């Protein structure tokens, strides 16, 4: 990933953008965090949050007119959060813990004419940066209008406190009468704060400043504090002008551009998206006493803050939630991951755990696609040869097996051509072989020239980021299709359908559910409520989703829609090879999915059925309803990885039996090894991805003069074999001609006896 691409990804995710309140605060106060601290009664940290952005916080927090409130997202849900009143109660109750902190002194001198709010802001901001500032105040004391507030609004002691703080920051206060033309000569920059009473000789010649930088025509001169009683937000606006002028003065004194790279005020324009349709209106808390909130009232009011966030995608995706942040951060982590030359690639698991289901794209206001981000990252890892070889190993082995020993393509028995090829998909064949055969029968009834095509569409290679391997598969698939006379393809797998549509646009392909729906019975009496779980690969396939609903209606089923279904549907935990790279997370995803309903779940993807059924919830496949004599119980456990392999071979041989002229493929010798597999070992095999086939191969080798180990007392034996990239081990006992399995394990490290 190039830095430019990272920036583009980052720009799409607006979760880090300030919420409306902050965007509406001219001082950029983090009102969301402030409200959160207040709601917890953490007064001191709430005050610290205010003072992080406010100059002379004790004063500003008491008098700010809170323009932010007009933008608050709570506005129409009971009224804006009373930030103004909350800020007051905060500073009244929590003394400032602010330290006198000043950068090393700088030689350039600043003079502020006028001692009003805007000048005090200039003095505060620039003094902290190390500039010596002299404030020439009008009237008897510095502060201008601050001296005329009622005591209960702004106690004079508070003003005094803040002025003391400024003096500690090396701000000097002098009466305006002391100001002479010499003072101008010795200053490097001058600010004219119009929010104080100044002699006309000083104010009359002042022109209107630049509206963004507050610079006057004369270099080094700036002005602000231009608003009086007529302005609804005059105090905060004058303060804001002081702050903007201070930014300009600092840039001017450093001989930097006044404008380049300068963040403009947002004036309430927030990019952060916050969904509110699930938020109930709660009326604004009214203080019982005119003086303002009590602490208890303040907590209650602050707790109304929505804590505006986007997190639309994260709130619905276990994967995004599990990694503890949100896509903008993930994009950065993935970028950093690809930049590492030496050291640990921390984001490998992040990249490989996404199901590529694309729900995030649907939910995100900016269509951020975690799927594209992760898929590209996987492709890069494969290209740069740093994809962990174990990450997708099992799925790729499965694919290989389905494409070799499990694959078959034939015209219908006795036919020379095919009008249609039925492509059940490797998972349906592995999980529901009997139903697959019946479904083929049904299609033959509808169209006698329907051939059969057992294969894997290559989705695992695509998901694993193996671009080259996938392209090769796609080409092979296309070639087979052409050799069969380029017929229509009908598939029972949403993933195969999507793969064909996305990568082989020349192939006319259709979902078997649509073909069947055309023949569907008139609606049966609604008997039974079920929740349809759409596979994630059917997200963009409204026609197939509708066909399934038609079929189910015909079977007397009523859909109790899952909250996340149709276009918003989510993955079962298998997609994108999540189950391979992060099995624990795949379990969580399935649990979260089934928790969305109390109704019995029905799906039309064999893999979804098994993944969801792993949770123990009853889950049916639509074929269980269509062919009730071949129905599997909804409570049935998922098929084991070994069974899927064996089923595929059997399905193929059952089909081949229909072509008497053809020779069946010969069984391998190891297939006859007889196993006794206790339940605990079966579970171990499933979890460790060890197939019966693997074990038979290991034992077959051991039994035929191969080397093995025998325990001297227990009689247990251990055999091993290297099969591809993995070494498999089996511990067993022999009972007559059968092997009783005790344990099995595997590793990828290669062992070599050291040469002496």
């Amino acid at each position, binding site marked *: 990933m190039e830095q430019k691409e990272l920036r583009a990804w980052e720009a799409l995710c607006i979760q880090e953008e300030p919420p409306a309140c902050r965007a509406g605060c001219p001082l950029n106060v983090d009102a969301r965090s402030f409200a959160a601290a207040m709601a917890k009664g953490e007064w001191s940290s709430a005050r610290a949050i205010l003072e992080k952005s406010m100059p002379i916080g004790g004063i500003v927090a008491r008098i700010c007119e809170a323009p932010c409130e007009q933008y608050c997202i709570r506005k129409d849900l009971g009224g804006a959060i009373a930030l103004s009143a909350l800020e007051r109660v905060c500073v009244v109750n929590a003394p400032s813990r602010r330290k006198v902190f000043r950068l090393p002194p700088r030689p350039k001198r600043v003079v502020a004419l006028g001692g009003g709010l805007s000048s005090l802001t200039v003095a505060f901001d620039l003094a902290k940066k190390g500039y010596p500032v002299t404030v020439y105040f009008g009237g008897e004391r510095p502060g201008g209008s601050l001296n005329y507030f009622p005591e209960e609004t702004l106690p004079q002691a508070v003003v005094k406190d803040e002025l003391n703080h400024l003096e500690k920051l090396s701000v000097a206060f002098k009466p305006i009468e002391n100001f002479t033309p010499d003072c101008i000569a010795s200053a490097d920059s001058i600010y004219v704060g119009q929010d104080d009473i100044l002699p006309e000789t000083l104010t009359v010649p002042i022109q209107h400043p630049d509206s963004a930088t507050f610079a006057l025509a004369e270099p080094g001169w700036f002005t602000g504090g231009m608003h009086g009683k007529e302005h609804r937000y005059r105090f905060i606006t004058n303060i804001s002008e002081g702050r903007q002028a201070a930014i300009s003065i600092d840039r001017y004194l450093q001989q930097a551009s006044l404008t380049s790279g300068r963040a403009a005020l947002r004036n309430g324009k927030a990019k952060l998206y916050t969904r509110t349709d699930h938020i109930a209106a709660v009326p604004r808390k009214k203080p019982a006493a005119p003086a303002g909130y009590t602490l208890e009232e303040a907590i209650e009011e602050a707790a109304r803050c929505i804590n505006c966030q986007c997190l639309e995608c994260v709130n619905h995706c276990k994967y995004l939630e599990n990694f503890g942040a949100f896509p903008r951060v993930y994009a950065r982590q993935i970028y950093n991951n690809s930049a590492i030359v030496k050291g640990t690639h*921390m984001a490998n698991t992040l990249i490989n755990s996404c199901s590529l289901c694309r729900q995030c794209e649907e939910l995100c206001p900016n269509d951020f696609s975690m799927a594209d981000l992760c898929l590209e990252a996987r492709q890069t890892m494969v290209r740069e040869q740093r994809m962990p070889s*174990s990450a997708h190993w099992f799925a790729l082995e499965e694919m290989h097996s389905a494409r070799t020993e499990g694959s078959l393509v034939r015209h219908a028995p006795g036919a020379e051509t095919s009008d249609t090829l039925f492509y059940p998909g490797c998972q349906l064949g592995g999980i529901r072989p009997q139903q697959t055969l019946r479904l083929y029968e049904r299609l033959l009834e509808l169209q006698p020239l329907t051939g059969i095509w057992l294969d894997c569409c290559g989705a695992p290679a695509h998901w694993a980021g193996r671009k080259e391997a996938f392209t090769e598969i796609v080409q092979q698939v296309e070639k087979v299709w052409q050799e069969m006379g380029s017929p229509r393809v009908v598939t029972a797998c949403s993933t195969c359908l999507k793969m064909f549509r996305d990568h082989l646009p020349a192939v006319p392909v259709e979902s078997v559910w649509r073909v069947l729906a055309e023949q569907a019975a008139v609606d049966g009496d609604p008997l039974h409520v079920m929740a349809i779980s759409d596979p994630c690969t059917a997200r963009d396939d409204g026609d197939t989703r509708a066909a399934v609903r038609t079929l189910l209606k015909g079977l007397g089923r009523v859909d109790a829609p899952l909250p996340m279904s149709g276009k918003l549907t989510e993955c079962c935990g298998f997609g994108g090879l999540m189950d391979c790279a992060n099995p624990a997370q795949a379990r969580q995803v399935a649990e979260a999915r089934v928790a969305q309903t109390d109704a019995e779940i029905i799906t039309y993807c064999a893999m979804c059925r098994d993944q969801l059924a792993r949770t123990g919830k009853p889950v049916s496949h639509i074929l269980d309803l269509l062919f009730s004599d071949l129905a599997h119980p909804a409570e049935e456990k998922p098929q084991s990885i070994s069974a899927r392999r064996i089923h595929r071979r059997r399905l193929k041989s059952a089909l081949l039996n229909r072509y008497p002229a053809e020779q069946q493929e010969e069984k391998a010798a190891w297939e006859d090894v007889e196993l006794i597999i206790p339940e605990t070992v079966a579970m171990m095999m499933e979890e460790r991805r060890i197939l019966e086939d693997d074990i038979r191969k290991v034992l077959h080798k051991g039994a035929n003069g191969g080397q093995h*180990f025998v325990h001297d007392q227990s009689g247990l034996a251990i055999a*091993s074999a290297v099969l591809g990239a993995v070494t498999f081990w089996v511990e067993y006992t022999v009972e007559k001609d059968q092997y009783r399995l005790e344990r099995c*394990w595997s590793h*990828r490290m*290669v062992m*070599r*006896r*050291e040469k002496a």
Partner: protein
Amino acid sequence: MNLSFLPADMNWTCQPCGEKLQPGMVELEYMGNVFRVELPVCPKCSAVLISEDLAVGRMLEVEQLLEDK
């Protein structure tokens, strides 16, 4: 790295060699990294026994570490 992974129970005999396994130095290799470790070995045919504990424990850990390097 010089580590010993001898199981508590060394009472294994290699078949068909008929030799009792003995501690021996073995090289384990993964992704170009080589480790010398001590494991039960058949003195005659050099067959090595990798226990379940080792395979699903330290070995797996190291494999994963190296894959993320």
